[in-house]
């Protein structure tokens, strides 16, 4: 076992996904299969290899500190499920 049902539950919480018991079961077995396949990488010696984070090497890409027009409150909220008085509305935040 690479990953337990309980860990699947924890990862789902991190990703803010709600999984039914059924889904959790299916995912646990699918993820185990996939993660087992990933084990193939253990056969590669990567000692001292710099991880590749970008497909091409570029550096120092900047913009100038010049103001551009904002899109306006109406446009900003046009797609919002809940918009009120110029704000995005969300249900109660329980911390």
């Amino acid at each position, binding site marked *: 076992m690479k990953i337990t049902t309980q860990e699947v539950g924890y990862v789902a919480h*991190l990703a803010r996904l709600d999984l039914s018991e059924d889904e959790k079961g299916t995912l646990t077995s699918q993820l185990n299969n996939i993660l087992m396949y990933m084990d193939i990488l253990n056969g590669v010696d990567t000692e001292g290899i710099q991880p590749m984070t970008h497909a091409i090497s570029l550096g120092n890409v900047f913009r100038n500190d010049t103001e551009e027009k904002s899109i306006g*409150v109406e446009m900003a909220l046009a797609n919002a499920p809940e918009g009120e008085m110029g704000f995005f509305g969300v*249900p109660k935040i329980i911390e």
Partner: protein
Amino acid sequence: MTYETVIGLEVHAQLLTKTKIFCGCSTRFGQEPNSNTCPICLGMPGTLPVLNKKVVEYAMRMAHATHCRINRTSTWARKNYFYPDLPKGYQITQFDHPLAEAGYVDIETGGVKKRIGITRIHMEEDAGKSIHDDLSGSSYVDLNRAAVPLIEIVSEPDMRAPEEAAQYLRRLHEILVYLEICDGNMEEGSFRCDANISLRPEGQEAFGIRSELKNMNSFNNVQHALEYEILRQRAILERGDQVVQETRLWDASQGLTHSMRGKEEAHDYRYFPEPDLVPIVISDAWEEEIRAALPELPMEKRARFINKYGIPPYDAGVLTASRALADYYEEVVRLCERPKIASNWVMGDLLAYLNEAKLEIGESPVLPAALAQLIGIIGDGTISGKIAKEVFEGMWQSGKQPKEIVEEKGLVQITDTGELEKIVEGVLDAHQKQLEQYRAGKDQLFGFFVGQTMKATGGKANPEIVNELLKKKLSMS
């Protein structure tokens, strides 16, 4: 048992760029909610960040001013967590390759000098603001502040007392404002501080368990929160219990810290390299360009004022509290060439009037040239120091030059000995009783005659001449 306090601070400073860190939206404070937004800072699907060059330059200034080593290559990372004021579901920040590392700031508390280490300075984007409506239970999100540039300055756990922490913060604040990269406004959140604090038995090497304090929006709050936390932790340790590692919120109204326990889950931020941004590569030439353009910093300015103008360290401290005040003072000195008197006037009357009127030095109706002129006419005897106070008030109210006011009001000092002699004689004639008493040995009455003479001249008499004349007259007959 005696305990030693260990404090480390994390400071977030908003940078004074015109636009946000990754898009061209304005950073202006106090705008209509969500009006400073665009598809990029709203985290719309498909949008990409492009780095504002000014942010890097401002951060480099701070790195220099705090003696940090600027990394030749620094990179961006994503810090993943969900919150409504974080539009992309991740914050773009720097993680394993920050802009700068290993610097320091010197502080002084109770006459003792100390060096506080800076672990790192990195750049990141700010989050928006959530407003909670207790009535409806809903929350409302304003993303104007989302993606406003920040630098985070992380100190070493080098501070041993709340006063040191407060002093360190004041120094950082002063430097940021001097560099003109942050407005330093703590109430509006442009300068924010979180503190890590722990106690350990005196002599013990290992750190104790720490708590992280948040929600302190003034220097005093930081100091009070830390003082409270020391008492709280000491009580726990003395009971033989263990401090819980947690985040605590300072409640200024109650003067205590609250646990956020239970409200905060264990975080797993899943940092990884930001694929949408490329590394920042800083050449020697670029670093030198930034260094060369750095202004004189508060500590350097203070030392120079003491040496060059011969003013006491206390005066130098007050006068260099801001770059604008120091510049004002130096301009006055340049024009009047009397550093100590200039210092007295700037620190005394000028600052008092400014405080009273709640004005900044840049808004003063009395300009340096006018103050210098005032100091000049005191020095050449045109007016007395006492009259000068009256003239200053006139200058403050009308914005006029001191000479103009002196002329208008006829405040020129009476230095004509003949004229003053007559006045002194008149005063003595009018106070025969006091004269007798004086002659009978009541020396203290000398001051009374000076006062009466000044009164008779409306304060315009040259006090030295009056003194001389009185001495002469009183000893004569």
